[in-house]
């Protein structure tokens, strides 16, 4: 091990650059995986026991509020809550005179049944009571509260990008509850408020909702309930499309095209390039040390030991690069909580599997790039090598 370590640093610049190059590739791999996981976060937080009903044509079309009472009696339906994407923008004046704009997802919902459907949003009972008692009250995720520097009782003013107020004034809310997600995969940045407040104050689309959330009595009945709901409204002016929450969330990702394939393609190219760089360095290093390998064999080192020495060096380069690249990215994102775009990625973490994957790639790259000089060393005949050098 000592010899492997010392040999690594006989050409510090070369080893340093190889480690750095490979580390950057591994860091990029981890970053891409974190981005993919961030895009998938909505899918991960979906529950199998919830269905979403939207307009058959698109989520941008609305459904009548009356559907709630028509859906509720369906067999297999436990509860129903309506919701509408509000799309408000938070603006805060800065001392410089500019306005700081912060975006976070915000919805108007049927508060009581909605909170019953989302036990992932955990709040103390007194906050629940306060929220239910205040029509212009809202609940925000702990991440958004921290980001805005707000606490219970503080006011939030949003500019309604979709829903203007009747008097064109901004929408004002009072924070009555701050939820903590029950798991790391649930979005901690949401803001929800009473649908009645939206309906009373908006100038258009009264008595309409963007979607309905159905709580199933039994998750296995999702197909039957979906079909029954869609059949019920098939010939109405507002036909529906009912799907499970995962499929609903997936449609937002699919709107962005097949970026997964693109990410994977970029990742593969990066890894392949990394393999070539590392293999080239190891081959150069091995070729330069043919005499040394012959001498070690003459001293009594077996073929396997000499092979292990060269492969060990290559694997060590891979592992150093892993520590620097993947370890550094993990520390930056998961420990220091760096997020390139908190508005866009409420949950941004390098998944544990990605770190394991990077470790596998680093070890594999080391093994493969060490194999070529290693096999050459294995076949080296010391008598011939010592004679020819």
């Amino acid at each position, binding site marked *: 091990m000592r*010899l492997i370590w010392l040999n690594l640093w006989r050409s510090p610049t070369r080893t340093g650059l190889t480690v750095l190059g490979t580390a950057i590739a591994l860091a990029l791999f981890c970053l891409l995986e974190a981005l993919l996981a961030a895009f998938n976060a909505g899918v991960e937080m979906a529950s199998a026991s919830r269905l979403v009903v939207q307009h058959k044509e698109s989520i941008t079309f609305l459904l009548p509020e009356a559907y709630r009472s028509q859906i509720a009696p369906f067999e297999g339906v436990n509860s129903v809550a309506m919701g509408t994407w509000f799309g408000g923008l938070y603006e805060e004046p800065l001392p410089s005179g500019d306005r700081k704009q912060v975006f976070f997802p915000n919805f108007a919902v049927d508060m009581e049944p909605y909170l019953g459907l989302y036990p992932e949003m955990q709040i103390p009972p007194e906050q629940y009571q306060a929220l239910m008692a205040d029509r212009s009250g809202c609940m925000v995720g702990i991440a958004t509260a921290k980001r805005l520097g707000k606490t219970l009782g503080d006011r939030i003013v949003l500019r309604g990008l979709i829903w203007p107020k009747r008097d064109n004034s901004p929408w004002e809310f009072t924070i009555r509850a701050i939820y903590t997600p029950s798991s790391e995969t649930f979005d901690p940045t949401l803001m929800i408020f009473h649908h009645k407040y939206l309906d009373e104050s908006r100038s258009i689309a009264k008595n309409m909702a963007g979607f309905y959330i159905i709580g199933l009595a039994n998750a296995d009945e999702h197909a039957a309930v979906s079909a029954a709901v869609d059949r019920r409204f098939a010939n109405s002016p507002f036909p529906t499309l009912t799907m499970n929450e995962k499929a609903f969330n997936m449609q937002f990702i699919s709107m962005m095209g097949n970026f997964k394939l693109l990410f994977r393609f970029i990742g593969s190219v990066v890894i392949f390039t990394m393999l070539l760089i590392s293999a080239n360095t190891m081959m150069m290093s091995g070729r330069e040390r043919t005499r040394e390998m012959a*001498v*070690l064999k*003459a*001293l009594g080192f077996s073929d396997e030991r000499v092979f292990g020495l060269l492969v060990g060096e290559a694997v060590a380069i891979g592992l150093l690069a892993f520590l620097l690249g993947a370890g550094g990215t993990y520390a930056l994102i998961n420990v220091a909580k760096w997020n390139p775009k908190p508005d866009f990625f409420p949950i941004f973490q390098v998944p544990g599997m990605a770190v394991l994957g990077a470790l596998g790639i680093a070890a594999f790259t080391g093994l493969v790039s060490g194999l070529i000089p290693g096999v050459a060393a294995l076949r080296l005949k010391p008598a011939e090598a010592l004679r020819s050098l």
Partner: protein
Amino acid sequence: MDPIVELEDVTRIYRKGDSEIASLNHVTLRIEPGEFIALMGPSGSGKTTLLNLLAGLDSPTSGKIRVCGQDLAEHSARELARWRADHIGFVFQSFNLLPVLTARQNVELPLTLQSLSRDERRAHAEAALRVVGLEDRMDHRPSEMSGGQEQRVAIARALACDPMLLVADEPTGDLDAKSAQEVMQLMKRLNEGFGKTIIIVTHDPHVAEFARRELHLEKGVLHMERRR
């Protein structure tokens, strides 16, 4: 007493394209324990081939080789490597020390193949460096030493495992006259004081004078022997 080296009608033929070159041609040789042998002859006469054969680095085309009581043909490459680590000490013309290691670490290198603790390895290496008079250079790297000192470290490395046989291929070839003299004095002391059997390959008649027996090879044939 059994000979330490015994070659019986040994031939080594190399193939180069369609032609065959006999580097050694029907050589029969017997070397007793404690001997100091100088192998001499012009370039291409088969000196190094003979040295490689009796160190188990190469195998003969025909004939039998017994070294330290072992028939080398009976062993696999891995067994020969292990045997070499235990029985043979190598000294090369250009020292061949590992540049990343200190003198002590270079000497410890063959000891890593033995079942010794770290402290035992260190003690053995330091003892070997004391034998060659380099106790004050133990922590120096090869680049910080003169050629003569490097060759003495290489000799200490060859001695570290206390081998029965020391083989040296032109050990003074890269040294100035004074350093060459010192190295050969050391070889002589190892032979006379420690009873090591030494075989050196050399072109230099002054170096050969340190040996008690000279063997002359020409075109792969052992054609002259001189004893002192």
